[in-house]
């Protein structure tokens, strides 16, 4: 039986208050870091832990920190990406609502590692309770001297603010997030320069996901080796899996990295709804291509999922049983990406709109066989050519639906109607 790490406090009543957090050992990691670690030692610790970013890309956190220029004259920023908007994902929300200090402590540790004196938490605007709890937690942390000037009596100063998103999925893309904080339209920026070199206000900036940051106090407290011992060596650690859709027990599950998708869905999630049979699973939010039932034995970690042409992404696991219409799901996913396209680049802006129009016809039973080839061509023209990962993700997800469930699309065309509705 796996002992919960990130969600350990969540079940305690009023865990979001600083009292409960401290009682459970909170902020001791911060004291350890500030008194016993140099920033470089801390970065090495995180490198040793093999912690990889939980936002979706899985980039090694310590390596990212290591790219930040050491020049003390340069102002640096830490941003927490709490814009959790990937459909099927609600893990960061639970951390912020139930245990915001875990994230804040992680942020202070991260800021110390990179030498940032200012940090912003970018929370999506719809998460009102998360915003409220985080704001309250920040006040408590300031009051207790975990934030502000001379933290815990050291020379380390840190200011931390919440910046609320306002309904734009693209803000989860890190450069768009920074543009949003700077008060510009949230459109992704060219890389290079990478944010670690030239980010917020032109200063070196690290952007880490909530869950990534929440891992930090535990790594400090229990060591890199402990962390590395959980799950696969190359992408270890505890992981939050969001389970939803046609599953008996939807919810947030904390389990080791690398658990099999089948075990997650069938054992922990209780399997499909009564009488149902699983048709497909989306393993990492809607950007992650769906896997047909036959592929469910894959391990839930960055590398294993990449090997079968999908991804761990945000670990938003959505289960589709046999009643689900894949055409409708594909249409809705594409509508989502089209709605959220920032409009910057041609393939995403124009290609997704075109795809939506075709998919709507297909779902209504007004499609033609040529439409399927056209959709494939569209995916080919978008994938790899768009400015950021939004267009890629949209095209990737749609191609997978076409690849695995082409017969469903064909039935819509031949029947002249949706066979499911």
């Amino acid at each position: 039986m796996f002992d919960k790490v990130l969600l350990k406090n969540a079940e305690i009543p009023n865990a979001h208050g600083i009292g409960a957090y401290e009682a459970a050992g909170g902020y001791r990691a911060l004291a350890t870091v500030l008194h016993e670690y140099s920033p470089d030692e801390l970065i090495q610790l995180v490198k040793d832990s093999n912690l990889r970013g939980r936002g979706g890309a899985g980039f090694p956190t310590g390596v990212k920190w290591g790219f930040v220029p050491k020049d003390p004259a340069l102002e640096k920023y830490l941003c927490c990406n709490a814009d959790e908007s990937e459909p099927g994902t609600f893990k960061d929300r639970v951390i912020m609502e139930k245990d915001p200090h875990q994230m804040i402590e992680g942020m202070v540790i991260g800021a110390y590692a990179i030498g940032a004196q200012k940090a912003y938490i970018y929370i999506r605007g719809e998460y009102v309770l998360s915003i409220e709890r985080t704001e309250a937690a920040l006040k408590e942390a300031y009051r207790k001297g975990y934030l502000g000037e001379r933290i815990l009596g050291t020379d380390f100063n840190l200011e931390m603010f919440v910046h609320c998103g306002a309904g734009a999925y693209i803000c989860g893309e890190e450069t768009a997030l920074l543009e949003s904080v700077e008060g510009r339209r949230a459109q992704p920026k060219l890389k290079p320069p990478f944010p670690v070199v030239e980010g917020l206000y032109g200063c070196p900036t690290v952007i880490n996901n909530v869950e990534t940051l929440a891992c930090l106090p535990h790594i400090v407290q229990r060591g890199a080796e402990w962390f590395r011992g959980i799950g696969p060596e190359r992408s270890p650690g505890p992981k939050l899996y969001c389970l939803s859709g046609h599953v008996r027990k939807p919810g947030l599950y904390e389990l080791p990295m690398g658990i099999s998708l089948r075990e997650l869905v069938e054992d922990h999630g209780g399997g499909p709804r009564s009488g149902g049979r699983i048709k497909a699973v989306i393993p990492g939010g809607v950007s992650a291509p769906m896997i047909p039932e036959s592929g469910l034995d894959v391990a839930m970690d960055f590398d294993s999922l990449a090997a079968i042409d999908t991804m761990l992404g945000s670990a938003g696991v959505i289960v589709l049983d046999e009643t689900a219409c894949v055409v409708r799901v594909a249409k809705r996913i594409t509508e989502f990406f089209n709605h959220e396209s920032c409009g910057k680049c041609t393939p995403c802006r124009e290609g997704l709109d075109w795809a939506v129009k075709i998919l709507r016809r297909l779902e209504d039973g007004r499609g033609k066989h040529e439409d399927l080839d056209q959709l494939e061509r569209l995916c080919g023209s978008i994938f790899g050519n768009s400015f950021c990962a939004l267009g890629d993700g949209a095209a990737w997800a749609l191609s997978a639906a076409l690849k695995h469930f082409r017969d469903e699309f064909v039935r819509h065309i031949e029947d002249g109607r949706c066979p499911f509705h």
Partner: protein
Amino acid sequence: MATGLRDKIEEVAGRYPNRRSAIMPALYLAQAEHAQLSGEVLLEVADILDVPEIWVYELATFYDMFHTEPVGTFHIQVCTNISCLLLEAEGIVAHLESRLGIERGDTTPDGLFTLSTAECLGSCDTAPVMQVNYAFHENLSERRIDEILENLRGAVGE
């Protein structure tokens, strides 16, 4: 009123190294005060922050949560993204349409309700879900909807 808004905006502007960054929080504050971000309100925000008007317009129209068009007292937003879709969110929207007598995207003639569909609200394990203004309502059913609408109408009546 305006002075109050100015003070609040000034306070939040202090969190950032430049005034442009404060446009988003300022728009939230202005929206809380005026309900709708009309042209005059956007101009007022630009004035208070002393930034070009176009910057304010750019943001007010980029983000879904800023309303440059009028919205009802209760803005109902039903998530219709995949997790909710799979649990019949479309039926929830249809039920609301029939109960409110309007179609998605519209506002009731009395200005009380605006019905919208929304992208994923991050509450997938309690699907289907909706937000009324900022409050979440989870595990929706037609019966739950009827109760919620009754409560909202009652709240206004009081």
